[in-house]
């Protein structure tokens, strides 16, 4: 391979090349994905059409797409905050789980019937609910930040491991202290006041997407307009330069960790209050990783994250529908989604390397001479 390609003197980094290579990667992934439909007797082209028709073509489908996009957006925003600051956080599965648990706890005590818990008026309930979940995730991820800044631990590995601690913790909660009467390890159904309100009549679209889009705006404000956001970016690009210019690098990592954890926890909140309405095991279902992928496809740009996440969600909602109607396994969508990302990353190869054309007449390279 090293004889077939040689490194370019400078990488191609004009916007047009980046856009072309990204679009090319997506098309290539879709083209390869097309073959996956064939064994199930589906016409790939029609399959793709019906994929998006069911998720974007009807109001009902679009509502489902939005519901699925909301947690993805939040996790992707968390990725954006952490990774822009150079904090390689991978603990969103854990943050979602912790956030969901905190939301569940607050839903169960915050609006109980009289005598069963603290009763809050609706006006206070939602801000308090968001704050509780955000704080829970923030503390959870913040501890990773502390281990990194104070003791020099590796945040990538720590946050990966913390995912499992969180998952087991919630398994314990739903099968012990918070378990409802019954056979399944899960909590009671939350009181309906604590469910996320529906926003499109006649569909199941809930307010999660509003939380997500609001958060996207705030993260955009932070990253591109605020001093602290600029400091985060400088920290991520060059910790040495950040320290030199008077930025407290440790605090910025901590801030990034807390922000990322809080956003991840909100994703958990949206899942549990919007869709499931009770806390049970296995809630994150890989969203904590897929959200990272969305953020990367959106080049860690908070505003770009929203449409990318919606497209991503549309793919998976469509695939579910296709599985129900045509028996095509929805796992195709995992292949498709990951191929897109892998190809986009691999397309960097073309930006950095060019094919080596045979040069005629050039002296043939020799490599002998071993006497010493």
């Amino acid at each position, binding site marked *: 391979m090293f004889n077939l390609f040689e490194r370019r003197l400078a990488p191609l980094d004009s916007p047009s090349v980046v856009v072309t290579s990204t679009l090319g990667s997506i098309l290539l992934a879709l083209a390869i994905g097309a073959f996956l439909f064939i064994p199930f007797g589906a016409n790939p082209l029609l399959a793709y059409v019906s994929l998006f028709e069911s998720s974007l073509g009807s109001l009902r489908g679009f509502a489902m797409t939005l519901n699925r996009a909301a947690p993805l957006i939040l996790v992707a925003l968390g990725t954006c905050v952490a990774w822009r600051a150079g904090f390689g956080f991978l603990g969103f599965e854990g943050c979602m789980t912790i956030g969901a648990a905190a939301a569940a706890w607050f839903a169960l005590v915050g609006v109980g019937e009289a005598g069963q818990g603290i009763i809050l008026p609706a006006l206070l309930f939602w801000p308090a609910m968001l704050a509780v979940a955000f704080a829970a995730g923030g503390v959870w991820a913040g501890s990773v930040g502390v281990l990194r800044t104070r003791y020099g631990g590796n945040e990538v590995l720590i946050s990966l491991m913390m995912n499992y601690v969180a998952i087991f913790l919630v398994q314990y909660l739903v099968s012990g202290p918070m378990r409802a009467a019954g056979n399944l390890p899960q909590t009671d159904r939350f009181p309906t006041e604590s469910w996320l309100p529906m926003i499109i009549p006649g569909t199941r679209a809930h307010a999660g997407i509003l939380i997500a889009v609001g958060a996207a705006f705030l993260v955009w404000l932070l990253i591109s*307009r605020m001093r*602290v956001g600029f400091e985060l970016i*400088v920290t991520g690009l*060059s910790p040495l330069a950040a320290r030199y*210019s*008077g*930025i*407290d690098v440790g605090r910025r990592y901590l801030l990034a960790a807390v922000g990322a954890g809080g956003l991840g926890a909100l994703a958990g909140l949206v899942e549990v209050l919007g869709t499931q309405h009770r806390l049970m095991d296995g809630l994150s279902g890989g969203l904590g990783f897929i959200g990272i992928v969305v953020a990367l496809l959106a080049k860690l740009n908070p505003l770009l994250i929203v449409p990318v996440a919606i497209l991503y969600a549309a793919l998976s909602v469509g695939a579910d529908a296709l599985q129900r109607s045509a028996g095509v396994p929805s796992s195709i969508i995992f292949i498709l989604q990951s191929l897109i990302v892998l190809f986009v990353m691999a397309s960097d190869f073309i930006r950095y390397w060019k094919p080596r054309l045979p040069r005629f007449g050039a002296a043939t390279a020799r490599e002998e001479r071993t006497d*010493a």
Partner: protein
Amino acid sequence: MLPAVELRGIVKRFANVLANDHASLSVLPGEVHALLGENGAGKSTLMQVLYGSYHADGGEILLDGSPVHFANQRAAIHAGIGMIHQDFMLVRPFTVAENVVLGLDGELQIYQEKRGVLDLAGASRRIEELSTHHGLQVDASARIEHLPVGVQQRVEILKLLYRNARILILDEPTAVLTPQETAKLLETLRSLAAEGRSIIIVTHKLHEIIEVADRVTIMRDGKTVATVAKEDTTEAELARLMVGRDVLLRVRKSPMKRGETLLTTRGLTVNDDRGNEAVRGIDLSVNAGEIVGIAGVDGNGQSQLVEALTGLRPVTGGQITMEGTDITGSTPSGRKDCGIAYVPADRRGVGSVGTLSIEDNSVLCNLRAFTGKFGLFRDRGRSRSHARDLVARFGVKAPDIRFPAGKLSGGNLQKMILGREIMQHPKLLIVEQPTRGLDVGAIEGVWAELLKVRDSGQGILLVSAELEEIRNLADRILVIFEGRFMGELRAEDADDETIGLMMAGRSGKTSGKTRTLTHV
């Protein structure tokens, strides 16, 4: 005599520079050959081509008269070429023996290992033989991370000898050495040449060349401009060839108007990254309106001293005050607040963020001044006009202020950084190696700016390894050696020889007696 190695018309192009422009070099067996040139002249690149690290875009390499092509370093090592890089290529957690045998196998093997199983005991015996034979004492079982740099360099030399290299390339070998270690090294090199090996020393230090080299090849702007025998040349001629013009740099200084005391330190001690004491009890004061120069060989504690003064490194003892206020424990931003600005030696890694625009970089050290009310949001309008001022006032050549700072040339980047710090109107400016790697024009520009700062009544602490720079700019000169000041000289009293002796660890006050050195 047939040259042991010959480079003919080597061309090497990088993204935006022509590093080697038809460079040629020929080295005889048994010769010590110096490759002389300023920073950035293309010396290291040429040697990397010879060592197989880079592929040349043109030209050819001949060993003993026959052309060769090295696909990688391995092929070069096979052909008997060895290279010691400026930053040593040693694996720190490994032992000396492990480092020495690293990469040896197949035909390079000296003792036949059984099926790829390491024989470190055998290697250690061989290392001991070599080290006694060449007078390079090392403990083969010691870990590199526990060895001082002088010994690490011995390990690097032993590595080459173990491979029986016939052509030894040393890239700036004396940069991290004390004068004593340097003398020892040059002696070793002479004895290796006497065995018939060819030695190439890459350097920008004139006086060392004169001591040891048989012939000198001078590089400038990627070209090899001349090769001369030592007997036929003078330091002055070499300098002229290297810089490309006759006069050495001189500046005109106005008389000093010394103001009140700004910065003082008392008994300052600071550790380096490895926890060894790098600064050992330093007393220093800088007044307004003067330039205090700290001269010394790299690695004698000056970087740690500066980092301690700017709050980037904790002190282990002593006190730092600024205008009478104790700032020993304050943060980097606290130091900025009391009027200390800093131009770091590493322009691209520390002083700027390469992917950010000139505009963003121009506000880097003073972010709070470019925010709106409450300091929450950035005020882009102000930062844009600030960046335009900076570019205009300090003559930074760039298409516009959105241009990424990392794509500026070294000289323009330094102007931007220096300008940024000066425009904060600091009371004290600390500058570290301000002209390293810059061309002559840029050096003159930087010097002029520094003198302007001094004349406007601000204080400057100048840390530099270039004697010429120190002697031209400083009003008072302090010489640092192994973390201590060897003495203080007034600019008028300073000559290269006195400073040189002090840099070698002899106290200025007792210049008659030689202090015995206890260097490990």
